[in-house]
């Protein structure tokens, strides 16, 4: 049985790995989003985070032996696709404005 | 008259008060959609109407001599969950201050007709709102309502200073707002504390001033009262302003437009003194007795300190602004004498200061409109150009340095007198803690006051005519001995430099008349103030006795007394 605390039911290593992977992907995604300037790369990082989320869904779905997890992954895919479409449209637009993809070229968010 | 009539009368009174408060609001609303031309007229009409309503109320005010509150406390619910009401009502002190406010506002409005040329609609709208909130503060019998009025005054004032003020208006407005707001947080905190205590011990929510005062003064233990009074004092001292938290005032006065300064000196500062008189003193007699000396020391320092600073000012408006600090020092000193003479003098002083200092600001503003200079190094001897202006200037200066026969004297004199006799002996029935020393030191304020005020008059009004070189009449400037052999007779009806217009004189005459009346026949006002003052100071002799024995009332004793109150 479970070597660490026996009263727990024996877990599924796959689930554990999946969850860990999802956490790592999400974290890496955040790091990337914060540390890259290229807008496209930043959007890729958001996609990474989506990946993490999806993986977590699948893992939990497996843990609880429930299909809802997978169903939600479908929705995640949907959102990701929509996001990609819009985001890339925006990127193109912004690139046309400033002829660069650097996010730092845009400071209009600053108050004053 | 029968109760029924009484009820009807109080109903009518209530409506009159609300009318005087709401008419300005309605006026502001109308102004918002009117055009700039009509705005000034509307504002004047609205303020006059409000004055009329209040005057009508004062005319049939039943409690002039009783010191009571009318209409009866209570009113429609406002925040039902904590039983906060829209309770309004006047006693003679607050009514007098409200009348002062209602008298000053039309003067301010009409006085701004020529001074304010841009964004008139906002200006007059804000002024109407300011008026309404000040009146609300004076009329409120519910501490929360009072707080609302007290605080809301800051908003219009902020805009009035920040938009129509002088070159440093932004900074001045920010400082005014933040500083006084910080102060009033103390005040809010302490009244909330009292209300909560009341709920804790009686299980009922009440925010009525009378209820809370009687509750706090009898039920709260001495050390609690000490801190309560300290907090309230800290809150109101900023508004008064007492040394050393006065520094926002000169800047604000100096940068504010004329009417702003007038109303600031006239009634806004009085909100602080009124707060101390109406809330701090009655709520925490133990604290008041314990802290009176401390406060009095602050006041005395303020008198000398501000007076000396006035003496070296070159900016006329700043000089008068600092003089407010000095004068209000004397005013508060009289209040902390804790005997009827001093307190009556203090309340009267509030009114007098509002009249004379307000008028002085008005006059300086009138000169400023003509020359756009306030610095006495560049301008002076204006009596040559504007004799009527000079007359009023001297008149109100004399009133401000307390010349007997004018209003300033009575209040100032009674304040000092009260301070003087506020010694430990009980032969006056009101033992005090201050005594001759304070009166002597504060009395030198009379000398210093004469020094700086006459400096103002001597340089700004009299002396050889000095006009700013810049303006087209520079050729008259800097040489009195010629300037007016030519122009001696016609008092310079040059464009822009003419003497006061009929409108301006019409603004000043009422103030002058009121000053004269108070100076010559203060008896009715003093009689009106008297009972309220005695009611306010009722718990003090005992408290002061305890303070003299430096043995503040023990907590359990208070509790025991509370028990008895419950039984009785």
């Amino acid at each position, binding site marked *: 049985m479970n070597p660490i605390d026996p009263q727990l039911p024996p877990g599924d290593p796959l689930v554990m790995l999946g969850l860990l992977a999802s956490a790592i992907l999400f974290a890496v995604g955040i790091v990337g989003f914060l540390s890259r300037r290229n807008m496209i790369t930043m959007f890729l990082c958001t996609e990474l985070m989506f990946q993490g989320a999806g993986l977590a869904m699948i893992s939990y779905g497996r843990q609880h032996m429930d299909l809802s997890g997978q169903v939600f992954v479908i929705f995640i895919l949907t959102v990701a696709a929509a996001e990609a479409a819009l985001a890339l449209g925006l990127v193109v637009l912004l690139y046309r404005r400033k002829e660069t993809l650097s996010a730092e070229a845009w400071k209009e968010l600053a108050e004053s | 008259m029968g109760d029924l009539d009484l009820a009807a009368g109080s109903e009518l009174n209530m409506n009159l008060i609300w009318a005087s408060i709401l008419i300005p609001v309605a006026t502001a609303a109308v102004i918002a959609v009117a055009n700039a031309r009509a705005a000034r007229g509307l504002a004047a009409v609205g303020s006059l109407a409000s004055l009329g309503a209040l005057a009508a109320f004062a005319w049939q005010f039943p409690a002039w001599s009783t010191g009571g509150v009318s209409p009866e406390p209570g009113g429609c619910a406002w925040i039902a969950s904590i039983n906060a009401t829209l309770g309004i009502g006047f006693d003679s002190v607050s009514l007098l201050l409200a009348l002062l406010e209602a008298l000053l506002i039309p003067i301010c409005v009409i006085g701004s007709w020529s001074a304010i040329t841009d964004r008139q609609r906002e200006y007059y709208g804000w002024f109407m709102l300011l008026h309404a909130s000040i009146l609300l503060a004076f009329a409120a019998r519910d501490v929360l309502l009072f707080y609302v009025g007290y605080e809301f005054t800051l908003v219009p004032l902020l805009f009035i200073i920040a938009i129509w003020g002088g070159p440093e208006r932004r900074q001045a407005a920010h400082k005014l707002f933040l500083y006084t707001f910080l102060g009033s947080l103390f005040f809010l905190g302490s009244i909330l504390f009292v209300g909560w205590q009341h709920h804790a011990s009686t299980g009922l929510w009440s925010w009525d001033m009378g209820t809370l005062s009687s509750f706090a003064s009898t039920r709260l233990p001495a050390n609690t009262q000490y801190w309560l009074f300290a907090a309230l004092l800290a809150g109101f001292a900023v508004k008064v302003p007492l040394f050393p938290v006065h520094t926002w005032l000169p800047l604000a006065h100096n940068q504010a437009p004329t009417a702003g300064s007038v109303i600031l000196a006239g009634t806004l500062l009085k909100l602080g003194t009124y707060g101390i008189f109406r809330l701090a003193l009655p709520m925490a007699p133990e604290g008041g007795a314990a802290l009176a000396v401390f406060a009095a020391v602050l006041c005395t320092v303020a008198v000398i300190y501000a007076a000396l600073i006035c003496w070296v000012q070159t900016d006329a408006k700043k000089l008068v602004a600092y003089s407010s600090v000095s004068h209000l020092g004397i005013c508060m000193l009289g209040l902390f004498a804790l005997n009827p003479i001093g307190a009556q003098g203090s309340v009267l002083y509030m009114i007098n200061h509002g009249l004379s200092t307000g008028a002085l600001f008005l006059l300086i503003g009138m000169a400023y409109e003509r020359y756009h200079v306030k610095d006495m190094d560049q301008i002076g001897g204006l009596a040559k150009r504007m004799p009527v202006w000079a007359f009023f200037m001297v008149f109100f200066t004399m009133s401000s340095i307390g010349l007997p026969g004018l209003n300033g004297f009575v209040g100032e004199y009674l304040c000092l007198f009260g301070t003087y006799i506020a010694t430990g002996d009980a032969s006056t029935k009101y033992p005090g803690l201050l005594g001759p020393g304070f009166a*002597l030191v504060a009395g030198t304020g009379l000398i210093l006051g004469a020094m700086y005020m006459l400096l103002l008059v001597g340089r700004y009004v009299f002396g050889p005519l000095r006009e700013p070189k810049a303006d087209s009449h520079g050729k008259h400037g800097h040489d009195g001995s010629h300037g007016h052999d030519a122009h001696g007779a016609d008092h310079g009806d040059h464009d822009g430099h003419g003497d006061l217009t009929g409108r301006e004189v019409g603004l000043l005459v009422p103030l002058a008349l009121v000053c004269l009346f108070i100076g010559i026949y203060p008896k009715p006002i003093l009689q009106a103030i008297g009972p309220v003052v005695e009611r306010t100071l009722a718990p003090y002799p005992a408290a002061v006795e305890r303070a003299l024995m430096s043995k503040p009332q023990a907590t359990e004793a208070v509790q025991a007394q509370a028990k008895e109150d419950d039984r009785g």
Partner: protein
Amino acid sequence: MIAAPAMLSSVLALAEGPLDAHAAPELRWAGLALLLPLASSVLCLLCGWLKVRSKLPAALTIAALGGAFATILRLQGTVGETPVVVNLFDWIDLTWGDGSRFHGFTANVDLYIDRLTVFWMLFVTGLGTLIALYASEYMESDVGKGYTRFFGAVSIFLFAMGCLVMGGNLVMLYLGWEGVGLASYLLIGYYFTKPEAVAAAKKAFIVNRIGDLGLALALFLIWQCYGTVEYAALWKAIEAAPASSEWTAQAIPWLLMLGAFGKSAQLPLYVWLPDAMEGPTPVSALIHAATMVTAGVYLIARMFPLFVVNPDALAAVAWVGGLTALLAATIGMAQYDMKRIWAYSTISQLGYMFLGLGVGTTFGASYHVFTHAFFKALLFLTAGAVMHGFAGQLDIRKLSGLLKVPGFRLVSVLAVLGCFWLAAFPFTAAFFSKDEILVSAFTAKDDRVHLLGWIGLLVAALTAYYTFRVCFRVFFGPVKFEPGHELHGHDDHDHAHDAHAHHGEFHPHGPRWAIRVPLVLIAIGAILAGWPSYRTMLHHDESNWVKTQVAQSSAFQGVAAESHGSLDGHAASSHASAHTEDAHADHGHLVLGMDAHTAVGRLGSLACIVGILVSLYVHLINRGTADALRRTLMGTVATRWIVVGAERKWMVDEFYDWVIRLPLRVIANILSAIDELLLDAGIVNGIGALPAAVGRVFRPLYGGVVQGYAVTMAGGVALVAAWVIWIWLRGAN
């Protein structure tokens, strides 16, 4: 609340004796003495409003003052030996508790009318009327400009003086006290484009304010000790409570003294009076010579019951008076400006009066006030006439032999007459009043003041000297004069301008009737002022009118005990002086082996004549000697300080500037710097800057770059996460 009259009567119920005032509502008309000047001042204000360009204001004022004078005359006929209190209306009336003593503060607009009041008001209003008449011509060049202002201020002055003298309580007195201060401020600063005038006015007001503070504090103390500030009740209280030794009671006279010294220009507060000569001459005559400056004397005389119980205070008054007399006389000897000389002589004479008060003869003091009022007014007005005629020339070195100048004979004669009075020439009125004072000085019971007698004699000699210095220099000798440049010290003076503009050489123009008539009348008054003494002297009738006036007032209360041996202050005055004789006998007070009166009479005459002779030689017969003497004195270092000091007025002004004003200004500047830099910019703004400083730390995050906001968000998430971890760890172990 117990109304004031009721309270008053309750006090009066237990009162008896000649000092017991009784309320006399039927005498309300006495209020006219205040009302008329007030009305005329208001009317003058209206004239100013309507830009009246005629002599109407003068007419109004003269009429009003004349009416006031008439009122006082009628009052003189009416008022008996017992004072009366007339309540005009309630002013300040505070009561609490049971409203009894110490539970109320009442100061109504009452009139307290006794003989002293009437006596004072007589010459105040009388001289006021005459001088107003004089001014109506003197100021005519200002018609349409300052004319209304001038007469308005004069009316205000007489109103305030009336309040001061007739007021029924100390607050009324204070009202008048400050009111005359205002009037003198306005009138000294009349030529308000002249910086000196404005400065002088300010100085006068502020120096007076110092005295006023003393008066106010004394008032507080009186209430604290006696529970009232109304004369009628106060006398009772004083009689009831003998002199208490606690400091409050002891301090009262000293504070009153301060007030009196401020108003009456005594050491150390006399410095404002010489500068006050910047005002128009009629003002100097009326306010700064005849009436206002005697208010201090009136105050002490009126409050005498408070002084008699305090011999130290009396001695102090005496010494201050004596020293002031001496100092002012020495300065007066070395001045060249006629008006200034008269100003210093005024100070010196006022010193005499205080000396008299100090040695306990309120009668002598009041008598001297009375006589002095006339001749000093005369002197000033003649000086004014000269000034008027000679375009503001006042330098006694530049005027000479005016007796021979056509149009100025009358003026000169009257001036010389006045000089004799001022010099207290034997058998002039001033001689008698001064005699009274000096006798009391010699015979006073208090040995500390005897020296003052001799000082008084010395001052008499000096006075005679500098008086006739002016007299001989200006009115006798060869005719020569040069016009002044100052043109009445006033640039609005159009006709003076014309005088220069149109014809180069200068024609002095003599005064017309409106100046001559008052001069003559005042001169007659000055002569008649001595009448009581003449009667006393000729057929030994002791009923001295002035003494009667003074004796039947608070001024004599308790004088008995102190200075006049067994004199009973409440008895009729005829006994009074009789007892005085006895008193001298009792004391066996012999001066130079003679009875005090004779001795002082002779010594005084001697001093006067010596002084006159000296200045006759020095300033008329051989005018060179004065300058020669001056040169010799200047020559030797040991003595030059005398001349320099006297001419520079012993540097008192400079001393005050350096010791008081300058340090105060320095402190003020320091405080102002502290207020703006430390308090405001330092502490307040410093506290205000804290949030900004905190904000500046995070500012880079909000430069507008997306990642900045992202970092904030993620940082928030991370914080939450860290919190989760923390919770977990807490749960774990």
